[in-house]
């Protein structure tokens, strides 16, 4: 199935200074982006962030206002979509309703003048496990099956790049999980570059090797999923990918590789290398920590918390039992609505709303952000999506 070997760079996508404006509205600000051959790349962002426009410019369905699109060494900026070696899996699939599944999948081959398509189409339908359905019409298939037809219809052309525009958006949660694994399997099998647009941060993190988080027509941050999650550089990324507790603090002093900050009387330690903001003594900084990194101890046993951990005190405002974990919302002086996820290994029955608690975590899990940003950026967007 592998159509390209490791030395072929034909599947690289290079966007240079690409932008798109509609009248006075800028959908995509000038953007440089390189997607390496064979990678699974996700463009992640809330609706209206410019991710679909970027994808459509790669496909040729949208003409960039400035900049160029390169596939490998070829400049395809001026090529119409039907001359680009790129195929798209559309949102809600756009299967041809008047053609059966076989003809839908054969469409691209036939347009390129290939006469004997039967063997290829049957192989492709087997790859997506739809061999039995070849003579059905699209509306006779379930959502998940239609989705697989859309993938087969694009992949059979051996494109250099496969573009996926919210391909799982119309499926229910369970099927979505299944298709995520399925798509990842297919990508590994065929070795084609996948560019995947989604607003679902879990989907992006599960499937992609590299994720570009987009906001307001710009790429906020680009990196491997774990890197983005552990080291967000903006409040948008910190809030959009998972949940972050952000505390407004003031730089107290620096000692060696650590920065000591003060937040409402509590002293917290933050590794200097994990702080993306400039730090001067007395300056403001946002200190962040993920909810699952935090330990929760009842105030009566505050003495048992090991030395050297960041600690703040608060009162439990709310708890919700999720099964594998319990989510607590703790009100602290430094940060109202602090979120803490604790695995349900040994549940302390005293941790109920109203209880005084100590929150503590390893200082290495702390990150620092520029305080000049909107502390809630990315929170509302995620809820809306």
């Amino acid at each position, binding site marked *: 199935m592998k159509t390209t070997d490791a030395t072929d760079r034909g599947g690289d996508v290079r966007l240079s200074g690409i932008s798109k404006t509609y009248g006075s509205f800028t959908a995509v600000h000038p953007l440089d982006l390189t997607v390496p051959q064979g990678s699974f790349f996700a463009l992640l962002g809330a609706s209206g962030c410019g991710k679909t426009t970027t994808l459509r410019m790669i496909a040729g369905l949208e003409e960039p206002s400035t900049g160029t699109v390169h596939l490998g060494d070829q400049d395809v900026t001026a090529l119409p979509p039907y001359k680009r070696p790129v195929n*798209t899996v559309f949102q*809600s699939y756009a299967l041809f*309703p*008047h053609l059966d599944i076989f003809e839908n999948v054969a*469409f691209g081959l036939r347009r*390129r003048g290939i006469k004997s398509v039967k063997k290829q189409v049957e192989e492709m339908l087997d790859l997506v496990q739809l061999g039995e359905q070849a003579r059905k019409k699209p509306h006779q298939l379930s959502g998940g099956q239609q989705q697989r037809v859309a993938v087969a219809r694009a992949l059979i*052309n051996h494109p250099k790049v496969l573009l996926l525009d919210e391909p799982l958006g119309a499926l229910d949660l369970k099927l979505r999980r299944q298709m995520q694994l399925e798509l990842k399997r297919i990508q590994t099998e065929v070795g084609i570059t996948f560019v995947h647009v989604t607003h679902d941060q879990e989907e992006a993190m599960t499937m992609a090797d590299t994720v570009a988080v987009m906001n307001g027509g710009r790429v906020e941050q680009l990196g491997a999923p774990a890197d983005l999650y552990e080291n967000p550089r903006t409040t948008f990324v910190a809030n959009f990918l998972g949940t972050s507790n952000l505390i407004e603090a003031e730089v107290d002093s620096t000692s060696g590789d650590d920065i000591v900050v003060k937040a409402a009387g509590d002293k917290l330690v933050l590794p200097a290398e994990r702080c993306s903001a400039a730090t001067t003594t007395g300056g403001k900084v946002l200190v962040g920590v993920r909810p699952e990194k935090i330990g929760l101890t009842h105030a009566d046993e505050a003495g048992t918390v090991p030395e050297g951990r960041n600690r703040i005190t608060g009162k439990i405002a709310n708890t919700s039992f999720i099964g594998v974990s319990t989510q607590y919302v703790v009100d602290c002086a430094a940060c109202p609505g602090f979120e803490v996820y604790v695995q349900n290994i040994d549940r302390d029955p005293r941790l109920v709303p109203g209880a005084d608690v100590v929150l503590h975590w390893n200082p290495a899990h702390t990150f620092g952000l520029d305080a000049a940003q909107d502390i809630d950026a990315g929170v509302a967007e995620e809820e809306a999506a």
Partner: protein
Amino acid sequence: MTFVNWLKRNLVVIAGLLTLAYLLLPNVIVTVFSFNKPNGRFNYEWQQFSTDAWKDPCGVADMCGSLSLSLQIAFWATLGATALGTAIAFALVRYRFRARGAVNSLIFLPMAMPEVVMAASLLTLFLNMGAELGFWTVLIAHIMFCLSFVVTAVKARVMSMDPRLEQAAQDLYAGPFQTFVRVTLPIAAPGIAAGALLAFALSFDDFIITNFNAGSTVTFPMFVWGSAQRGTPVQINVIGTAMFVVAVLFVLASMVIGNRRNRRKA
């Protein structure tokens, strides 16, 4: 009491059957009287069964000539109105241009205007242009009033079409022409077919506009009207029945084909 209950349960069926009878009774009368052997020139009273008219449908002078003329005009008017109307419908749905709103409402004017007014004004127009009345003036008039019906039928279909289907076709190496032939046209086809059938029916049986603009040319509806003054040959019923049967056969054939296709797919 049981009768009332029975009535309640079957009201919808009864109403449906009565409506069907109301719609079909005239056709039944036409068919029955095509087998009549009238006394005198008028075919309005049942006398006795006969197949004379069926054996000699063109036995009335000039009737089959006018029939063939009507069929020709209906064919060309359908072709012209369908081609133009489809193009207009696509333009109105897919493109934003100046005067789009105006065109959108003006296109319905021929539908809304009283036919006799349109007929008179068309005649005035043709006379002022010095056009010779006949086949061509009738054809132009028919295309004109069929156009709005075709546009309405096709527009409804095009509006419900997902523009992403055409983008998908382009993405799959179909150029603009291939995209139109392979995707756009087949998907719009039911709307276009409905528009064309409507145009054919309207053109074939139009009397008022045709009568004003035909000059000395005589179409089938004009022939029927003209002969009704002097006597109604049974052959008119024969032609009417034949048209009805052909139409019904068309519908049945399309249903059978549709069913068979669905069954094969399932």
